């Protein structure tokens, strides 16, 4: 039955194609993503992502709330591994709508929290990426460190995952007494752990061979698809909202935007995206260090409005979440309930690239590519 023809993939021998279902219950689809694969042996001919298994009507839900404050627990549940960053985006959008000025201390604490959250989120991305490639131990090392960040969060606001900490106009709690000393301890330990992680995983030759030159995403394609975050920076584009369109107080801190350099393979491959995350953790530590040194005094609740009832109008605010550009568009009709909320989720946009960059790779590479996109299905489906 085999016909020897030259296929579009440059191979001469062609066998019957097989359609195979990857997910929604599959270890390396990171949740409930379903990928419909068309495979020719081990070679992936086409990938069709199917999403929506975790759709919870976030936008519609928000429009049914009785006030703006109630939206924040729902925002938490969008990107559940980086709730602080989601909250920040939403809070900034709502504050823009309400036109309120917030105390500087609030901004500083928000930055500390969001950078800690970025580290925690990247730790998950890196750890699970290790599992995708087959190394189990780095995953637990990452979780060990993440646990300490979650302890800090719990100490501050009482919750470990879904915080409801960043409120519109302020924060739910001020930092507790022992927060800063514990954080300083963590920073010292974590620097060592990053080095260990690099020894164990990042520069392991097998790992490099598995991820370098795989899933190459050229910069122009990344921009055309609207990719953001480490996906875009991994392709060498120096674009970070914290630097290029500073929100909150990011313009006061000195940090670098990490980009992929194609050190071990082609620019924009899986390893580049991975290493951007590792480097960003270091940069986040730098920001946190600067922020705790210059932390101003103040009351974190002073600007929280008693009643949130914005004038009719609309506002869009975007912030750099660990996955990329997370934006919220809020439309108000003058009542206490948002008339319309739209979220621009980076994971969803980044996911759309998957069939573009994984055609012609092997099944094992597809796992590597999916992992390097770092999707959170809560945010993809909303």
């Amino acid at each position: 039955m085999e016909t020897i023809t030259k296929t579009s993939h440059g191979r001469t021998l062609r066998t019957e194609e097989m359609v195979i279902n990857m997910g929604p219950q599959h270890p390396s689809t990171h949740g409930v993503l379903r990928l419909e694969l068309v495979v020719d042996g081990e070679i992936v001919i086409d990938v069709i992502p199917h999403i929506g298994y975790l759709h919870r009507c976030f936008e519609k839900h928000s429009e049914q709330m009785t006030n703006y404050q109630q939206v924040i627990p729902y925002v938490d549940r969008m990107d559940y591994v980086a709730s602080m960053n989601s909250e920040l985006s939403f809070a900034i959008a709502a504050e823009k709508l309400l036109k309120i000025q917030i105390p500087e201390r609030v901004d500083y604490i928000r930055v500390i929290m969001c950078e800690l959250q970025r580290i925690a989120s990247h730790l998950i991305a890196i750890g699970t990426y290790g599992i995708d490639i087959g190394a189990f131990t780095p995953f637990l090392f990452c979780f060990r460190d993440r646990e300490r960040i979650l302890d800090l969060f719990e100490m501050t606001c009482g919750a470990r995952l879904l915080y409801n900490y960043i409120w519109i106009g302020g924060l739910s709690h001020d930092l507790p007494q022992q927060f800063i000393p514990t954080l300083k301890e963590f920073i010292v330990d974590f620097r060592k752990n990053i080095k260990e992680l690099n020894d164990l995983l990042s520069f392991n030759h097998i790992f490099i061979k598995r991820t370098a030159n795989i899933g190459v995403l050229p910069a122009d394609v990344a921009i055309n698809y609207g990719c953001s975050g480490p996906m875009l920076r991994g392709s060498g584009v120096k674009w970070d909202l914290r630097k290029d369109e500073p929100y909150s107080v990011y313009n006061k801190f000195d940090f670098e935007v990490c980009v992929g350099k194609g050190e071990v393979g082609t620019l924009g491959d899986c390893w580049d995206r991975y290493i951007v995350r590792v480097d960003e953790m270091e940069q986040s530590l730098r920001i946190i260090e600067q922020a705790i040194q210059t932390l101003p005094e103040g009351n974190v609740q002073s600007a929280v409005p008693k009643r949130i009832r914005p004038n009719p109008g609309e506002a869009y605010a975007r912030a750099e979440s660990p996955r990329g550009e997370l934006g919220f568009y809020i439309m108000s009709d003058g009542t206490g309930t948002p008339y319309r909320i739209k979220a621009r989720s980076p994971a969803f946009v980044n996911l759309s690239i998957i069939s573009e960059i994984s055609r012609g790779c092997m099944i094992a590479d597809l796992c590597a590519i999916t992992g390097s996109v770092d999707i959170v299905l809560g945010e993809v489906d909303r």
Partner: protein
Amino acid sequence: MIDWILTQFPDSILGYIIICAVPLLFILPYALVTIYLEMKMSAHMQDRVAYMRTGWHGTLQPFADILKLLQKEDIIPTAADKFLFILAPYIVFIGTYATFAVLPFTSSYIGSDLDLGLFYLVAVSSLVVVGILMSGWASNNKWSLFGALRSAAQIVSYEIPTALVLLSIVMIAGTMNMQQLSQLQSGGISDWYIFGGPFPIVKKLLLLPLMFILFLVQLTASMAEVNRTPFDIPEAESELVQGYNTEYSGMKFAIFYLAEYANLFAVSAITVVAFFGGWGSPFGSFMSGGVWDLFWFVLKGMFFVSINIWLRWTLPRLRVDQLMYVSWKVLTPFALVCMILIGYILVAF
């Protein structure tokens, strides 16, 4: 020992059955210990402690696991090929178990003192692949089929470096008999082939680097043959869910599991016999003979089992084509070159 058993049951098939069952006396406790060892080692490497509740430090947990697997519902998928599905785990186990026939546990016990011991070993261990292919096909699951095909490709490829390494050993020793091979290295640590074997010093020094390379080749190939990380692509839980044994449950799964661990010991034992003096004591005649032989053999075997476990929890997994690359472009040429050089050294010195 075998003669003794046969004399106890003259003219009866019972004697042979008992002889066949002897390695089981080793495999079952060994599997329990290794499961425990693997769990504990992996846990401590990851800053965890693994099971702590059943018995002292969870020592009874492997028994509990077996009990659980025994009473678990045995599911056969409706669309599966029933006959092959049921047969597959047993074939895998037979392939593994057959290798135990020629493992020289002590100087006085070996299941079958074959003159073609090493050859038999290489031949019979390929039987496993039949069972794996069968299970993958019979499961009627695309992922399982992938696992089975990968496994077939992998085991067939890695036979070649293994065979070349063993061939080099045979060239040096001049025998394929496992018992004689151990006997040749029984003069203590310096007689082990990894350190050049029982030869004059010049020849020893010349052989030493080659033997070291061959040892690395054998270690890598043996890891690939037991389907463990970094060569666990047939199981590859993040790609193929669980590979060829995805659809298995209960006792059939337990048999796959048991076969994997038994195979792990078998390949370690081959390394031990080929390079580390088999049952020989490292101190020559001191602490040797009788139970000491068994002690040294199992200790050395377990050492390599531990190395396997250690590597498994350290390294990421290779990709299919990289796996083939390692076998055909790295291990095979290296083993071949070493073999030729060994041949030259043996002739010249």
